[in-house]
């Protein structure tokens, strides 16, 4: 039937989780996919873990939330705990290698667990601010939900006004996507279905 790819992204407020989900969603939508994206929302305005639920497929999506993600990405220690319930035997669990104490609380039931040094790469090679774009590149490479070029087009659309003021930002963000993809390439035998 070609089931939708189920993606969970989670991190602290300000880490740019929702921005990444929005850009991937827009890119997939532009590519003509069926897309359903919903952020978590509760009573507190600030302070909770920010979670994005994204599904991309060929047919209308059945429900906004789901039980187990095909890929679950956690960008903080609290995010690892918060996303544990979305991890199943087929889940690829990705976390940032820089999270302190991560080893102790990683989900034991994931299909695969992958640490990627996104924050580190962003700090050393790019700019700390684009660390979420590095993550975006990794997610797209891991799932194949859209071509990288589509993601670049989408980010160009969303941040176009900023890129116009400072053209070097375009190159920085595109490089971040590519670096994120590189961090994952070859490290996964299986990919999610497009």
């Amino acid at each position, binding site marked *: *039937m070609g089931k939708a790819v189920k993606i969970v992204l989670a991190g602290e407020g300000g880490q740019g989780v929702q921005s990444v989900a*929005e850009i991937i*969603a*827009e890119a997939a*939508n532009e590519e003509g996919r*069926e*897309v*359903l*994206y*919903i*952020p978590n*929302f*509760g*009573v507190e305005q600030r302070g909770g873990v920010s979670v994005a639920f994204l599904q991309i497929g060929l*047919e*209308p*999506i*059945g*429900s*906004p*939330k*789901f*039980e187990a993600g095909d890929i679950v990405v956690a960008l903080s220690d609290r995010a690892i705990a918060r996303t544990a319930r979305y991890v199943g035997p087929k889940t690829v669990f990705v976390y940032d290698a820089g999270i302190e104490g991560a080893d102790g609380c990683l989900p034991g039931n994931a299909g695969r667990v992958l640490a990627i040094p996104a924050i580190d790469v962003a700090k050393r090679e790019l700019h700390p601010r684009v660390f979420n774009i590095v993550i975006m590149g990794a997610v797209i490479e891991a799932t194949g939900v859209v071509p990288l070029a589509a993601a670049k087009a989408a980010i160009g659309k969303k941040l176009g006004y900023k890129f116009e003021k400072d053209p070097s930002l375009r190159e920085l963000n595109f490089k971040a996507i590519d670096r994120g993809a590189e961090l994952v390439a070859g490290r996964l035998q299986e990919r999610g279905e497009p």
Partner: protein
Amino acid sequence: MAGKPIEGEKRVFMTGNEVVAYGALAAEADIMYGYPITPQNEIMHYWTRMVPKYGKRFLQTEDELSAGFTTIGGVMAGKKAFTATAGPGNVLMQEPMSMAEAMRLPTVSIVQQRGGPSTATVIYSQQEVILTTMGGNGEGLRVVYSTATHQELFDYTIKAFNTAWKYRFPTFVLGDGYQAKMRESLTLYDPAGRGIELVPPQPLLGAPGVPGVDRPPAQYRNTYSMEEELAEVLAKNIADYEAVSGEISEWEESGTEGADLVIVAHGVVSRAAKLAARELRGEGIRIGYFRPVTLRPLPAARIRELAARAGSFLVVESSYGQFTRLLKEAAYGAAARMIPLFKPGVGVTAEEIVARARELLSWSMRGQSS
């Protein structure tokens, strides 16, 4: 001032609340009255930004009682007025909506269901079904559309205004917090471009002319002195409602011919139910799918027909049986068992429905009752 908000057709990707605001614009709504409550706030946020551009009006009231009564004032003045609410706000809204029901007023309200009872969660449920269909101290003479997709949120927001002004029953678009906050794609369109005529509003109060001179005074009440007076008024309203129930009610179904088990759901859960039924049919299993789009009036005749033929309905809802109760009333006397899959305040996935349906089918194959 800008021209028409939507020219031609436009494919977009936005949240449900934004879709509702565009739907109201497309329907040429004039004025929104509202009060903050999650998860429908963004309808107000988008509408207030559209106000100067399209010459619309907005009032944030002091609470939902006022939002409902000001909406009543708006429609009586002959404007396409609407409001939106959720949860505890919907509870308060029943006060004004009882008056709208009694007096046949064409109010339009969008309800984005959240967890209940009380404050519960700001997030999601299907627990405002009884409240929205039968709330207040009346007989449920209202129209309620339960949407499942953003396209429907747009389509039925436009339709709600037409239904309200044509048939003169308070009309509701029943969504939920997931629909409100999620993003998916749809096509915005100018209704005229699709041959949809918009029913024009008319003033009930303050029409041109001097009362008693040019025209009789327009005088409305909702109070009667004797039981018999009330009975007469109610009998007329009920007769009007029953006369148009057939043309207002809508539903969706597939695979019900010869199916012993029919999965029944409404609103956003119907998406999962539809997928589940399709998956099982793909394996050669005879399983049906039925979804009422109108919860009031419910497509009772079709429900009775199906309930007479099928062995069971698997009724799936994010509530503890509110939708099931409506089905049972419509199907009363028919043979089908109503088997629950209740998840009050929590979403339901196609996988869960498939699993439950498999359980039921294997039991029935083994001749066990479930």
